[in-house]
């Protein structure tokens, strides 16, 4: 088990290097430091001297990959790639283009993200499974067909409408909670209810439909027929036989998402004014702050890889037949 995890972590290194190379190419080769200087300085102040000064200040005055002026290892370390990308591996994220320390920003902003994303995730899965189980009980009836139609309809509504509609109904018309904002004191739940509610409702369509398919796939297995033949009640078939066996496909889809919860949700956070990592990314995209985007890409891929490893480990927990080697 431990050996397996270590091997998987070692596999992650080439993937992370690949991710870094790709983002590096996107951000520096296509969009050269000169372009960045121009866009950061603003059209008015563009002079060759100003660009050169900006590049020195932000560390973009070195060659991209190989430095011919330096000797030995320094030929590779005295480059933009090493300074800007390889240092990410040591979790040295540097400073954003506006001069703020990215590591501090990330570590303070991930908590609000988690405060919204974790309840949404847990309640969402619980609601989806409950709804799906109810629908499966009425399998092959008219109710089942209409439920599937309802799920597909819910899926066909853009996420933006869920947010806009939720804010309009709950916050503006009924005045139950504030439209947006965030607090760090005891009142924080007032700001969390609506985003979590919107997130859960927006996910019901695709989630419940997916779980329904998983449960039906299990319901067609032989052991279910056997259980029915020996006289088990439908409820006990559903909860004692189908649900535990459907756990494996559920885990595949779900566990990989858990680490990504730290990243928060781009849309929810920006609409509800939550100072998390999602809105951080959005602001970085809008202000074209590539230092932040690069960091977030790196963190995102690490979390994804951790999610993959966790998925494998959770298999052994859910299904004793699975051995990792």
């Amino acid at each position: 088990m431990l050996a397996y995890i270590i091997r998987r972590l070692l596999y992650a290194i080439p993937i992370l290097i690949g991710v870094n190379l790709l983002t590096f190419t996107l951000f520096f080769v296509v969009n050269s430091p000169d372009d960045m200087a121009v866009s950061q300085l603003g059209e008015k102040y563009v002079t060759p001297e100003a660009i050169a000064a900006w590049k020195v200040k932000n560390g973009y005055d070195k060659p991209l990959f190989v430095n011919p002026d330096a000797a030995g290892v320094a030929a590779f370390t005295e480059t933009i790639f090493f300074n800007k990308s390889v240092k990410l591996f040591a979790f040295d994220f540097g400073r954003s283009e506006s001069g703020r320390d990215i590591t501090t920003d990330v570590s303070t902003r991930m908590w609000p993200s988690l405060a919204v994303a974790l309840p949404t995730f847990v309640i969402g899965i619980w609601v989806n499974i409950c709804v799906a189980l109810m629908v499966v009980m009425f399998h092959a009836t008219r109710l089942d067909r209409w439920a599937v139609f309802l799920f597909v309809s819910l899926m066909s509504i853009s996420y933006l409408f869920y947010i806009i509609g939720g804010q309009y109904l709950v916050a503006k018309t009924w005045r139950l909670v504030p439209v947006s904002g965030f607090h760090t004191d005891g009142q924080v739940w007032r700001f969390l209810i609506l985003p979590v509610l919107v997130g859960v409702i927006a996910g019901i369509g695709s989630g419940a439909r997916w779980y329904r398919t998983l449960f039906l796939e299990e319901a067609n297995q032989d052991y279910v027929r056997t259980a029915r033949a020996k006289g088990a009640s439908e409820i006990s078939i559903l909860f004692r036989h189908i649900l535990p066996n459907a756990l494996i496909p559920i885990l595949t889809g779900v566990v990989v998402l858990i680490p990504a919860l730290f990243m928060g949700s781009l849309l929810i956070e920006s609409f509800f004014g939550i100072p998390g990592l999602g809105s951080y990314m959005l602001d970085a995209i809008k202000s074209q702050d590539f230092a932040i985007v690069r960091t977030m890409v790196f963190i995102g891929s690490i979390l994804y890889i951790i999610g993959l490893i966790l998925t494998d480990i959770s298999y052994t927990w859910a299904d004793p037949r699975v051995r990792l080697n």
Partner: protein
Amino acid sequence: MKPVLLWSDALIFLLVIALILFFYRLRRDPQTRERWGQVFSSRLGMVTFTLIMTYVGIALLDSLHFRKALDNPESLQTEEVFYDNKVTSVLDILLQGMGERFERTYSAPFALMSFEKKNMRDAQGNDIRDFPPLKHAGTHLEDPSERGADILSRSLTALLWGLLLSAVVIAPQWLMLRTSANPWHASWAVQAAVLCFFTWLVSISHYYHVLGTDRGGADVAYQSLKGIRTGVLLGTLSTLVMLPIAVTLGVMAGYFKGWVDDLVQYLYTTLSSIPGILLIAASVLLFQVYIDLNPDFFSIGMEKADARFIALCFILGVTSWSSLCRLIRAETLKISQLGYVQAAHAFGVSHTRILSRHILPNVVHIILITFVLDFSALVLAEAVLSYIGVGIDPSMGSWGNMINGARSELSREPAIWWTLTGAFFFMFILVLAANLFSDLVRDAFDPRTAARRSEA
């Protein structure tokens, strides 16, 4: 009149021709015919297919672009013809100037007055502050109280014309297909509804703004219709970019195994571990920088917007091939173990021939299912990307841009709901139809569901 062929127009027509040829070839295969027969034997299949075809038809009409010739003023003594900088499409003509009836600013659906007050001078010459009347709505009415009766009578007339038009369109189909076993009547019902709706919309838009006007005074119904082309093209072109990459790499990885497999797996794991939205946003921003640095490439604004649109399709395609590739790799791994592929090897059949004759035809169902499934996801993604600011060029009509421009309108007092409603309605119908249709296609083509059906 001078035709304009934008890149996206050319691509979409090529795509339509390719799809027609593809389906024409597939018709010869009895198994495929049976599966399509299953899709179309249900009323739901007929209804959703007709709806999708309506959207595609509107998108194609909106892709036939041209620039109008301008009338030279008398003072200009020249034979040279000048063309309008604005690009018009066949759809604009069919809508009979719906997009040219601008107001000053917001107005509610079927309103006669503007939504916001303005300083005016009344007939007696006094300065007053009141709601100004609209320029293009209800100008034919002598008394505003006649509005209800006027709308009703005009709607009824339009509906009659719509029914007449439907009769003309459906009659030949009825003559040809009345003995068919498929439920064509469901399709005809939708066709009649669509035709009636559009006759009504176009005729009543001469007198009223059916869905009101937005901040810039543009007709919301017109904008929603213009969003159709963007949505449909984005959904199809992106998948078109993604397919060759995913299929080639997936089949090669599954068939050759070894280092090819390792490489492909490495590529798609790397790509899918990057948060998708960031990758897309970064690529779009970079392309935007490129466009801004090279403004001379494009002679008219529309071409610039179009270039950005194509780039977006391309980026969406390149960043989203990993899941299909994974599916195809797994399927190819399975197929290449089967007896007939082994037999082909034993007979010394070449790799290319095995791949094209034995492997590819057996993964077509995955490609088809993905194509239909991804379509609706891409239409939804467009709205989100436009909201983030990395979507369609704001000058190009799209539902995402409409939602983005209108997102704070509901929080006004009184709320402005019609822009969002317009975008919601047209987007929802398309995505719902595509989702329901993709369910049917998957049920018919996925061997797993097909096997379950034959057991039952």
